[in-house]
């Protein structure tokens, strides 16, 4: 708690230095991250599945002389305490750190999005509503009456087409205006309307002087009276007001809790545990909590429903009342033609074809990566051979530099990057299209066998790209138990780096059939681990509740940018290590230091797994980054002059080596993420479990092969 306070104070000081803090909030998948990227020029991950923004991301920009700090929050459906994300987002929005919220809503799904807006309005924080995907709405022959919208909600409402950047700067302009004037001024509507028509080349009419405030702008802000809009039915409203009066009498100013008294009353009535915990910290407040319990019981008996149902129903009723006046539907043009996305949706969730497509998609990703990577790899090899012909490697220094550094570099590019780039590209297309929730739909039932629901499939498929963000994505799981199992299963998925090893060794020298066999073994291990965790962890599986977003055409610019970002990360983390270790290995090889490290590992590497002793050190480096196991093998092959890895390892050794690399441990970055998501104990347990499994299965394959061949 203490940490949090000092953090807050620091933030406040920053505000004196002219910093405006804006948070982007809204339902999942409405385009918050797209707006964030447009404004900050950063590259927050964008995807078409719920929950991909797992942690809030911050960015800065300078707009008309103001320093603006923007935070992209995870998408949530309400401000209740249902999931961790909701609690975290709510606390963050309510804290002093936020001066204004930009509530991003999806124009094509006003009802459900406004449900969240209604809750945000209860927090009485300066707010600007961004209505995104206006282009899609208009394509459906619908439109929104923005004048009416602003009249009803009494806050600025801006039409936005985030992917094309339309309206995003106007959001900031409105935000600054709102913060500067401390209230929303609907009289300026005319002036705003005029501006709106020119939003493509908007110009600000007047500039505000820099904010010179020594207090949060929120305290000066006069929130409009929204009681006609937000009030509930007679019974509920009566109870909320009584409770609110009670709170005001007993607590007085609720500023210390950061929530308005009405919000606290509403949440106490709703049986919100977090708010209850907050209020009951003060022993004098026990009376309030008792009263709220009585009221709740009262209402539940009166309506014959659970309180959450009563309150949600009433909010939705209020929304229904206003939606007719906001939404304009051109019924003359309305067509009920089945669109291409409907057909794709139908096929990919079909009870037979759906599974065929799923298998083809997964196999296809690997197949194309292999084809493209193989072709590009050949070109890089030729280039290296061509360059090497004129180099003098007879001196020790020349040998270390050329074969260690340059050879290491070409090994990395030729053996690693050529696979990684097309692979990331395909994964990005897959996640941007909206296919992943369909896979979750098809495999939900199967995943229950492993103790989790279908959403885990999303993180597992993303794990094929990189385990690190995929394990972080396991936050979308609702309970601690499911999060832990999901993380364990996801960390067992062979990632792009592992794929490099498998493709480079087994794919290259033994053929694609053996790659399939490796995957089969990996798949069986995943089921095995899932079954064990499901049996041993207390608690049971929760049910899937997931929004199925429409398919959309992947945005080429987004795809290319994200692939570039991921590849850049991969290169900057990996290449220096590969080159450095390449040089180090060369030195160690010349001075024969490698031997002693390898000798210690001999019982495992040589006896159990039947590998050459030299692989011991590679497997250790592989914990850092898995592709190192293969990249270093190539470097070694070049530096000791055998040229090809196939002369270092026999076919069975290649198979076992790849298998062990696939299974033996999550990479270092993944272990850290697992520890962050759960705890270090669990991260180490998983690592140990995987090492054990890898050694056991590796030994079985090695000795099994040995016995079959010899007897």
């Amino acid at each position, binding site marked *: 708690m203490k940490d949090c306070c000092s953090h807050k104070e620091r933030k406040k000081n920053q505000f004196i230095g002219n910093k405006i803090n804006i948070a982007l909030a809204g339902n999942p998948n409405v385009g918050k991250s797209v707006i964030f990227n447009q404004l900050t020029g950063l590259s927050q991950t964008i995807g078409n599945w719920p929950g991909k923004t797992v942690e809030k991301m911050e960015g800065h920009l300078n707009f008309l002389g103001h320093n603006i700090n923007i935070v992209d929050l995870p998408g949530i*459906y309400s401000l209740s305490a*249902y999931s961790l994300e909701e609690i975290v987002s709510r606390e963050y929005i309510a804290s002093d750190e936020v001066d204004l919220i930009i509530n991003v809503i999806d124009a094509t*799904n006003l009802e459900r999005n406004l449900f969240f807006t209604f809750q945000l309005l209860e927090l009485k924080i300066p707010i600007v509503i961004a209505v995104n995907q206006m282009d899609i709405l208009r394509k459906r022959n619908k439109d929104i009456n923005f004048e009416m919208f602003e009249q009803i909600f009494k806050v600025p409402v801006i039409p936005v087409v985030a992917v094309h950047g339309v309206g995003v700067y106007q959001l900031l302009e409105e935000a600054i205006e709102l913060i500067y004037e401390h209230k929303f001024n609907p009289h300026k509507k005319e002036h705003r309307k005029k501006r709106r028509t020119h939003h493509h080349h908007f110009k600000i009419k007047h500039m505000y002087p820099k904010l010179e405030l020594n207090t949060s702008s929120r305290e000066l802000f006069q929130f409009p009276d929204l009681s006609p809009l937000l009030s509930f039915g007679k019974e509920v409203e009566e109870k909320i007001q009584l409770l609110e009066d009670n709170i005001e009498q007993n607590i007085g100013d609720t500023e210390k809790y950061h929530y308005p008294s009405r919000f606290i009353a509403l949440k106490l009535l709703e049986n919100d545990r977090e708010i209850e915990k907050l209020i009951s910290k003060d022993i004098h407040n026990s009376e309030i909590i008792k009263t709220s319990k009585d009221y709740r019981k009262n209402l539940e008996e009166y309506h014959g*429903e659970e309180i*959450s149902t009563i309150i949600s129903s009433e909010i939705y009723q209020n929304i229904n009342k206003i939606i007719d006046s906001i939404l304009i539907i051109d019924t003359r043009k309305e067509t009920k033609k089945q669109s291409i996305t409907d057909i794709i949706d139908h096929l990919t969730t079909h009870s037979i074809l759906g599974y065929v497509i799923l298998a083809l998609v997964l196999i296809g990703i690997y197949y194309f990566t292999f084809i493209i990577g193989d072709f590009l790899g050949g070109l890089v090899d030729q280039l290296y051979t061509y360059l090497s012909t004129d180099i003098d490697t007879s001196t020790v220094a020349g040998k270390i530099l050329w074969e260690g550094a340059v050879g290491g570099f070409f090994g990395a590019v030729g053996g690693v990057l050529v696979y990684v780039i097309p692979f990331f590209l395909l994964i990005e297309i897959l996640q941007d299209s909206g296919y992943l929730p369909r896979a979750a739909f*098809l495999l*939900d039932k199967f995943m229950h066998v492993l103790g989790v629901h279908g959403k885990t499939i999303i993180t597992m498929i993303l794990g094929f790209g990189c385990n690190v963000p995929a394990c972080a994505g396991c936050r979308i799981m609702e309970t601690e138990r499911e999060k832990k199992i999901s993380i364990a299963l996801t960390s067992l998925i062979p990632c792009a780096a592992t794929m490099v090893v498998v493709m480079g060794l087994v794919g290259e020298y033994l053929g694609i059939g053996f790659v399939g066999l490796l995957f089969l073994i990996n798949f069986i291990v995943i089921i095995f681990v899932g079954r064990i965790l499901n049996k041993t962890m207390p608690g049971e599986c929760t049910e899937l*509740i997931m*929004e*199925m977003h429409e398919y959309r055409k992947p945005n080429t610019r987004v795809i290319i940018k994200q692939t570039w970002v991921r590849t850049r990360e991969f290169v900057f983390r990996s290449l220096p290590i590969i080159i450095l270790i390449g040089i180090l290995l060369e030195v160690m090889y010349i001075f024969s230091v490698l031997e002693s490290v390898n000798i210690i590992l001999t019982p495992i590497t040589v006896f159990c797994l039947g590998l050459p002793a030299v692989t011991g050190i590679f497997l250790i480096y592989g914990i850092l980054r898995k592709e190192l196991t293969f990249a270093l093998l190539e470097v070694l092959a070049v530096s000791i002059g055998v040229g090809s890895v196939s002369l270092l390892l026999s076919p069975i050794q290649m198979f076992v080596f790849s298998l062990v690399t696939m299974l033996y441990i999550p990479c270092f970055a993944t272990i850290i993420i697992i520890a962050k998501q759960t705890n270090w104990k669990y991260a180490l347990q998983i690592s140990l479990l995987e090492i054990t499994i890898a050694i056991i299965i590796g030994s079985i394959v090695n000795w099994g092969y040995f016995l079959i061949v010899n007897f």
Partner: protein
Amino acid sequence: MDIQNRKSILNKERGSSLIKCLGECEIGDELEVIKVDAGGTATQRLATLGIVPGVKIIKSKSAPFNGPVEIIVKGTKIVLGRGLVAKIIVSCNNICMG
């Protein structure tokens, strides 16, 4: 048949509409939620998404092997696991009409 007559017949049919759980309904059925009995947090979660008594939904898809069900509520598609589907009671009007 005059309009008045047809209306009364429709009303009668409405009165006799079948009450069953969401899992038993056919794909494409237009349904009205009668009761959500899924326990605390799940009921709350469903309410947030607009799945409350009185709301009209369409059962749009059902995954094989007794898998999850997709419904359309307020214009959005929501997938619900089998366990939840059994706890949502709906009234099915168009069985009688068809």
